[in-house]
């Protein structure tokens, strides 16, 4: 009994960390668009669509601790990760810009921030989605074992 309590506590903590990361990323994303007034491009919006709901989905999963939440959040995280990967490759010039989908409005390759000379917004997004997936994956393995 004590053993399973401990396990459940650890699972909760992993999910909590994941929620914290998702919330911080969301706050950062809103900061860029609403406070610093960087206009989000189309690809940014696709990533936001995958990211923002996770705050509430994971949050709800935490309140009445429900392991099943992993099943519902992983697809969103993976979709966000794929978009972030595409965006990062586009941004760094590995995929040429001519095939990118957003020609009107804000360019998806316009550079806004450049921390320490190499960290860009799409890269932050990719990093964030990668960590979210890693945490969710650990949790999935722990509950299915």
């Amino acid at each position, binding site marked *: 009994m004590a053993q399973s309590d401990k396990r459940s506590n650890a699972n909760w903590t992993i999910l*909590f960390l994941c929620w914290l990361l998702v*919330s911080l990323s969301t*706050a950062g994303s809103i900061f860029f668009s609403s*406070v*610093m007034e960087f206009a989000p491009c189309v690809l940014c919006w696709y990533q936001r669509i995958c990211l923002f709901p996770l705050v509430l989905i994971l949050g709800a999963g935490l309140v009445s*601790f429900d392991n099943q939440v992993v099943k519902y959040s992983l697809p969103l995280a993976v979709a966000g990760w794929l978009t972030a990967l595409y965006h990062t490759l586009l941004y760094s010039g590995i995929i040429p810009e001519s095939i990118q989908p957003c020609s009107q409005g804000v360019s998806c390759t316009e550079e806004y921030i450049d921390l320490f000379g190499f960290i860009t917004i799409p890269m932050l997004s990719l990093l964030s989605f990668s960590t979210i997936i890693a945490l969710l994956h650990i949790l999935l393995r722990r509950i299915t074992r």
Partner: protein
Amino acid sequence: MKNALLAIASLVLIFGFMFVSSWYKDRQAEKSSFMAKENATTFVRKHSQTLGSDDAKVYIVEFMDPACETCAAFAPFIKQMMTANPGKIKLVLRYAPFHDGADYFVTILEAAKKQEKYWETLDAMFQSQSYWASHSNPQPQRVWEFLPQVGLDMERLKQDMKDPAITALIAQDVADAKTLNVRKTPGYFVNGKPLQEFGYQQLQDLVYSELREAYQK
């Protein structure tokens, strides 16, 4: 216990966000008022159209777009403030033609300036804006229906619109808008201080606080 942690974390995130946001905005405002002192030309270029007395101590710099609805809505509001404080406020118009094809209307406006009908033309444009600048169905050519009433020499206007200096002037304004971080129109600076929260009341508060500071003594 766990839910308490969740609630606390949420609160910390929300308040942290608000704190960092207001800190960032204050820092931006400081930076911009510093620029107004050190680099006044970024706010007022020689070519910029102004309204009001040269002795005015309060400068409202407005980055605008003739096709922007909010700019049209704010125009009478600013004129009201200027009539309420005669000689104390000077309005400087800069261009931030963010709407598609807005350069065209700026060009008309600048050509009208050569006939000394700038403000009349701008008023006529703002009043007829809904006919030619609708977002769903923009019809830029329809603006011409409303120009003769201003009393412009239309042939001369068309000739003046070809002046390459106008293109250069627009490029300069767009570059300055970028430097000053103007991403929406209208963008206001009052004596170099940016309008942080957008709204009529907020703009009035900012203008009046500058008026008090400038004319108290």
